[in-house]
């Protein structure tokens, strides 16, 4: 049972455009949602996270939009750069429960 779903599986955008990565979840008790970024040949690294009490979290060019009612969130990357090309994982958790991971979105930024 896949509790965290990501779409699209892969996404290609031009440099300077906004990339939008989507994530949805099933368990309404989830209250913590991190996004991890993974470059080829490396392990994932925390990029940005949000808690369910907020509907938006911004960090530079990266913004999470969170819709609790629809159990959806999205990661917006504005002014996309070739260095943003990576795989992005959405995950979810609550309290001390383990992180539940999505299957990832591979993002390619074309110069």
């Amino acid at each position, binding site marked *: 049972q896949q509790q965290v779903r990501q779409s699209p599986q892969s996404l290609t955008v031009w440099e300077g455009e906004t990339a939008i990565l989507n994530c949805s979840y099933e368990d309404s008790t989830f209250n913590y949602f991190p996004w991890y970024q993974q470059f080829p040949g490396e392990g994932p690294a*925390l990029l940005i996270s949000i808690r369910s009490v907020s509907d938006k979290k911004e960090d530079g060019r990266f913004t999470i939009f969170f819709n609790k009612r629809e159990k959806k969130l999205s990661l917006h990357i504005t002014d996309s750069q070739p260095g943003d090309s990576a795989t992005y994982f959405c995950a979810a958790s609550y309290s*001390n*429960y383990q992180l539940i991971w999505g299957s990832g979105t591979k993002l390619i930024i074309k110069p």
Partner: protein
Amino acid sequence: DMKVTQMPRYLIKRMGENVLLECGQDMSHETMYWYRQDPGLGLQLIYISYDVDSNSEGDIPKGYRVSRKKREHFSLILDSAKTNQTSVYFCASSEGQGSYEQYFGPGTRLTVL
């Protein structure tokens, strides 16, 4: 310096051989994890360790076992490796579960022939 190390980085084994993957962390984190990553499947949790000799099965523990005798060191063992265990294995550590950031190692690419 917050770091998770994994050894070896690349490993080729024959079916039926035993495999030992090693992970170390220098952050004194209580919680450590072993994941495997396959294309299109994201990260699958194999085992989680809450501290020395306190380990729990994750989502896909079959065919694997772990050992944690020191807080900074966590091993993954494959007894009699199978070809379907060919994958990239990641170790991670965190202060705790849930909303604590997980720090990942660089991964071990294991090929079982």
